[in-house]
């Protein structure tokens, strides 16, 4: 039976993760994500799970990857400065194909910045933070309830595709308290990584059948010895110096996400059917955009909200499908224009792309967005 409870976004992240089967958390305190560590420390041992406060964020993500290799669904949570420190090992997780979830509750940067203020300044870092060409799946919730349900999806995707998934929250959602009615845990589909004993001819631990992209995984200590490395490796997991094998490996890693993009990408489209202006907005900032759409509609303007829930890979097909009906696009985000670059790339600026952003640590209000819409209208009349 589900019942309404008052819950903070950070708390919902932990409860959702536990519902998804997360039983290991390693982290280091940092505003505005600290409540996730605190709640994990409280809740995990009640479930027979483990919590450890590490000496820094580098070791936190390392311990999470280690726990996942040993068979536990594992997670860490941090904010900008800690997210920067984690990048190398996130790349390791991608290369060695180790599932885990990394929460980044974004705050105002760069550097220590405005530690307690909201931001979406890590959007590009989520994609390009670690070196080399690599696939990234990143999800961004815009409410407390969605934090709960979407982090379950983050674990499901991570297990399914054997790759770290970045859960891109922001201070607005992390610290927001809302009354939520949690879904019945039995209604939630939880994927577990495909376990396999790799018998017979397919004994190699990174063996992938023709036409597939994700190797089956077996945790350590279950009777099948294999090697894991961040170096380019062959199907047995042993480091190799072959250009051909390296190319095949990296291509397959990218294909895991590219070939499954339609299954991975989710957006919310609000009043988009007849919209002539699309506000593109994600995460906590989308709350203000939703209000602005309602206010603009009340004034008789055909404005809709296009909200990427999967923020990486960027939902390009879905945005392109809307492009013919649109007169213009307004990108609203809590940074100096990061998802804006994706919108411009995908639409090739065939329709005017306007931008409203902010890096001063204050929130973007519905009135700010309405004012921007008015300004756009004036520009159109002037033309």
């Amino acid at each position, binding site marked *: 039976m589900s019942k309404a409870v008052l819950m903070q976004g950070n708390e919902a992240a932990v409860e959702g993760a536990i519902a998804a089967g997360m039983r290991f958390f*390693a982290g280091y305190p940092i505003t505005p994500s600290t409540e996730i560590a605190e709640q994990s420390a409280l809740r995990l041992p009640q479930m027979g799970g483990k919590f450890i406060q590490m000496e820094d964020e580098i070791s936190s993500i*390392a311990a999470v990857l280690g726990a996942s290799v040993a068979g536990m669904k594992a997670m860490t949570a941090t904010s900008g400065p800690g997210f920067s420190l984690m990048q190398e090992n996130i790349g390791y997780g991608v290369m060695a194909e180790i599932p885990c979830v990394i929460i980044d509750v974004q705050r105002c940067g760069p550097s220590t910045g405005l530690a307690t203020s909201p931001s979406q300044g890590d959007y590009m870092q989520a994609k390009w933070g670690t070196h080399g060409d690599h696939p990234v799946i990143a999800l961004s919730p815009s409410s407390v309830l969605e934090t709960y349900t979407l982090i379950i999806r983050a674990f499901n995707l991570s297990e399914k595709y054997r790759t770290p998934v970045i859960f891109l929250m922001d201070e607005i959602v992390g610290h927001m308290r809302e009354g939520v009615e949690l879904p019945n845990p039995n209604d939630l589909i939880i994927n577990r990584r495909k376990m396999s004993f790799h018998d017979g001819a397919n004994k190699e631990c990174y063996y992938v059948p023709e036409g597939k992209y994700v190797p089956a995984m077996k945790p350590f*200590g279950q009777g099948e010895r294999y090697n894991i490395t961040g170096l380019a490796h062959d199907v047995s997991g042993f480091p190799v110096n072959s250009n051909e094998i390296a190319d095949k490996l990296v291509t397959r890693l990218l294909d895991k996400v590219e070939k499954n993009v339609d299954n991975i990408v989710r957006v919310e489209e609000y009043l988009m059917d007849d919209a002539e202006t699309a506000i593109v907005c994600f995460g906590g900032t989308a709350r203000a955009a939703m209000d602005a759409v309602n206010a603009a509609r009340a004034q008789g303007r055909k404005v809709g909200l296009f909200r990427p829930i999967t923020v990486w890979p960027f939902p390009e097909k879905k945005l392109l499908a809307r492009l013919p009906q649109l007169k213009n696009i307004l990108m609203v985000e809590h940074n100096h224009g990061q998802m804006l670059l994706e919108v411009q790339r995908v639409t090739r600026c065939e329709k005017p792309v306007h931008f409203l952003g902010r890096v001063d640590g204050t929130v973007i209000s519905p009135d700010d967005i309405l004012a921007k819409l008015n300004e756009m209208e004036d520009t159109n009349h002037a033309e």
Partner: protein
Amino acid sequence: MPSDLIHQYMRIDHLPQIWCPGCGNGVIMRDVAVAIDELIQDEENDFDRDDFVIVSGIGCSSRAAGYLDFNSIHTTHGRAIAFATGIKMANPKLNVIVLTGDGDCSAIGGNHLIHAARRNLGLTVICFNNDIYGMTGGQYSPTTPNGDKATTAPYGNVDRPFDIANLATGAGASFSARGDVFHARETTEIIKKAILHKGFSLVDVYSVCPTYYGRKNKKGDAVEMLKWQRDNLIPTARYYSMSEELRAGKKLIGILSYNDYPEYTEEYAKVIAAASNKAKK
């Protein structure tokens, strides 16, 4: 001992190893394999080969993980102990052995070393200590003696070196020891004790790097460097029978510190018991 042992415990398709001629790492890697083998053979213990996990970082030493036919994971530079922490926490029944080097465990990974020692998490850390960064071609490491030369210390090393075994003791390690390449049998026995030790254990094993350290510092070839170990690194019984005068300039091969502190995962099991009782009420 070998070669049945080598066939049994190493991924022989990948031998010979990438290490230079005369490198001491191969001997230390075999010491580890012999230690594990003897522990498994000993019916006093309840050890299964699949319960062993080899974790390594980056550097010459860390290539050992790939050669040893166990559950093995070759991680990122300096972070082997942190990865091992997650593995041990997730499944405390595993015997987690970290193979690392002087740079990997005391420079870039120094923070993880001291904190794992402080927590007394049941890992066994074997440091292949060759006083140099070999993989990158001979830069000075935290254990390069003061005054010695390296590619990044062309005028002599200004830094003062760490003694890694003492560093671990200072950080609260419940088991800290020193071994070397020359005293292979003694070192194997020390590694066995380290693996049997319930809490955190560290064995700082002095390797030899004739190619990048020996040559540059006129220490002779591998043979000369091993003779130096024979004459200057002294196993426990003989060390304590020597006078203070004779001990001058020599170092002990053996266990330096030992304590019976509570082990971390056992302590955390108590947290789980307490928390789940509270949750039930």
